[in-house]
């Protein structure tokens, strides 16, 4: 009985933790020499976005937790610039996600290509 209660409680806690939105995520521009950026990536193997090379400087945009981002400026010899708060934006955008299944009774969203053609006629 006690074991069942404990299992139920652990499951409940686990489920609650899983449903939490998670850590604050920022889009951060990391700039430095090839070696410096590689050293950063070895420590934080994130996916680079928007990779640009200007002379000997390489810049990449990456998703980082606020905690990692705050610790970056003094490490690896890279410059870190916060571009925007991805977590805040995504919370805002959840308002633009349908809460019901609008197509449960049939149909599908109109194709934008065809729609555009009709608009011009």
């Amino acid at each position, binding site marked *: 009985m006690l074991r069942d209660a404990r299992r139920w409680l652990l499951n409940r806690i686990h489920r609650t933790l899983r449903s939490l939105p998670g850590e604050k995520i920022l889009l951060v521009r990391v700039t430095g020499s090839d070696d410096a950026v590689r050293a950063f990536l*070895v420590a934080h193997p*994130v996916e680079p976005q928007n990779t640009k090379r200007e002379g000997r400087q390489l810049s990449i945009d990456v998703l980082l937790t606020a905690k990692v981002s705050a610790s970056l400026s003094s490490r690896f010899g890279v410059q870190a610039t916060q571009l925007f708060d991805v977590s805040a934006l995504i919370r805002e955008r959840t308002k633009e996600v349908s809460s019901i299944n609008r197509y449960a009774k049939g149909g599908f*969203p109109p194709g934008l290509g065809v729609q555009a053609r009709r608009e011009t006629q």
Partner: protein
Amino acid sequence: MSYLNVDEVETVLGNLAAQYLNESRLIRLPESTCEGRVCHAVWFGQGQPGTKDVFMIIGGVHGLEWGSCEIALNFITDLLDPSASTNGLQYGQKLFSGPDIANLRSAVEFVVFPLVNPDGRKHSQGGSAWRKNRNDTYSKGFPNRIGVDINRNFDFLFDFDTTLVPQSGVSASDDTSEGTYHGPSPFSEPETRNVRSLLDQFPSTRWFVDLHSCSGNVLHVWGDDQMQTVDSTMRFDVPACNGKRGKRDDDYSEYIDPGDLKQVDLLAQAFTDNLHVVRGETYGIQSGFDYGLSCGASHDYAYSRGALGFAVEWGHVFQPDWTEMQCVIKDVTAGLIGMSIAASTPVHQQNENGVWADASSTEPA
């Protein structure tokens, strides 16, 4: 209209296939996701499936990149509309004529899998910048250790500690707390196995596009090193090359067939040219390696099986407001149609400027 939720994506796919019974098939993927969701893809074309070259598109691999599903669904909706083959399709300033679309429809088959990772999308649409799937097998109860990056779980140089140079800076990890955690083994995840099953089911897949966001780029093979067309012994599948890949400007470069390289360049250019006409957006073209050293990515895996692989990084934010997202959908759909027309054009009819970029069909009638 606004962003589709996970249930709507699957419902819309089913409704589309039901509406166009004669030209499409709804494909149920063999594996349910970790949260028990069943996924579908759509095949469409003329004649029986598998009798022509296949152009495959997948989307929704990363949970937070919502618009990929809407782009893929719009691509299906527009091309399946019977009037498109007579009246054509227009996106902003870009017009594909009726004969353009009719020729494309008769030349190739399409397989589109809009939502590979519904669990990740569901979690992200709850307000989280979530990239991976929601497999909690390896998390030991820690919420930040849930999930595997599907686009690092394909069987392409998966074991980066062996296949790449040490300290390479590859964007893949064996740490479960990282967003690029690649899983315990290639194809450990049901979502990855579903994509593989589609490629198995359609061995005539010649072109493969994975929709991602967000940097305004089209990426092509290879992701593990710079490319060269001379020495075919320097290949991803040669064990003697292990430990040499992944470093810029050294002795190792990944081999690509010269004809394939030409096609890769032409198709990427066709994508960006057609996209640009819509409203003037300029997307870059980069190899996966120039974008960021990676392994286990879908488009490299697809090319390792013989399909020219691309990843489109659409837009400039992960979730644009819906008004801007509709513009992105038009941009990318035009790019994909232009690319597939170029792909279906026999090589002997292609030229430097590309017959698919015929000036007569780029302006509105």
